[in-house]
């Protein structure tokens, strides 16, 4: 049976580092996927990151680095850049009337499939903010955002 554990991280200062922890139930046997989602608490300024110029390609803004580590011999099993996946869809879109979004163009990131056995139920997480380091010099504002991490796992228990 597939289940999911979630953790929410709030970033509100530049270069912030957040540690968090998942405690999986005793019947968890395998971690099968990781997924994360970014939610901005303040809207971006158009001047910094977004433009209507169809020839201007904005890379997806990197928010930070997410790492997950088990206590057993798997150790660090997930190390990935977390990106805000809303840019890059407007390349060569000359309408400028409507900005394509990830959910309108099937660009929403899916879960990262992984498969590791769980012998220790504790999973440590680490997130380091990179976004505020990148754009702090031009905006002088610490951008606030929340990241939700979803850890998918399998249990021995079958669904009733």
């Amino acid at each position, binding site marked *: 049976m597939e289940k999911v554990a979630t953790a929410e991280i709030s970033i509100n200062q*530049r270069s912030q580092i*957040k*540690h968090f922890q998942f405690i999986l139930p005793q019947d968890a046997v395998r971690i099968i996927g990781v997924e994360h989602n970014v939610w901005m608490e303040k809207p971006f300024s158009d001047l910094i990151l977004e433009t209507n110029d169809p020839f201007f390609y904005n890379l997806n803004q990197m928010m930070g680095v997410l790492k997950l580590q088990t*206590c*057993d011999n798997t150790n660090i099993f997930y190390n990935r850049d977390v990106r805000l996946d809303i840019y890059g869809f407007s390349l060569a879109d000359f309408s400028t009337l409507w900005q394509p979004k990830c959910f309108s163009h099937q660009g929403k990131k899916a879960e990262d499939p992984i498969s590791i056995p769980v012998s*220790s139920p504790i999973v440590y997480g680490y997130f380091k903010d990179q976004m505020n380091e990148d754009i702090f010099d031009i905006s002088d504002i610490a951008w606030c955002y929340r990241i939700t991490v979803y850890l998918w796992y399998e249990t021995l228990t079958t669904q009733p």
Partner: protein
Amino acid sequence: MTINLALEYIPRRMFELGLGNNYHLRFRHFLLQPAEIRFIQSFNQMYLLVEEAADISVESDFGLYDLSYGLTNEMQYEHQGIITITNHSGLNNHVRFIQVIPNYNTNGNN
């Protein structure tokens, strides 16, 4: 983390990692020059910080230890990978670790 706590912690941690008693311990005492930044390669090894060192930051893939850094919610005493030790003081500074070196050759499973 004190040395006694580290010595209590290491066997349990090695057992969790599936290594049992197959590891070596070394006590490492680093002397850092003013503002020195030192890189330690610690792949397949583990460094445990055994004191609350002041004016020192220790950063690795596992996290950060820096008593002067207020932007984190936790300090990390266990480090692996490339460890960066920075002396923020204008004077010489000391930092002590216990280095755990797994002995992979003695265990056929590893």
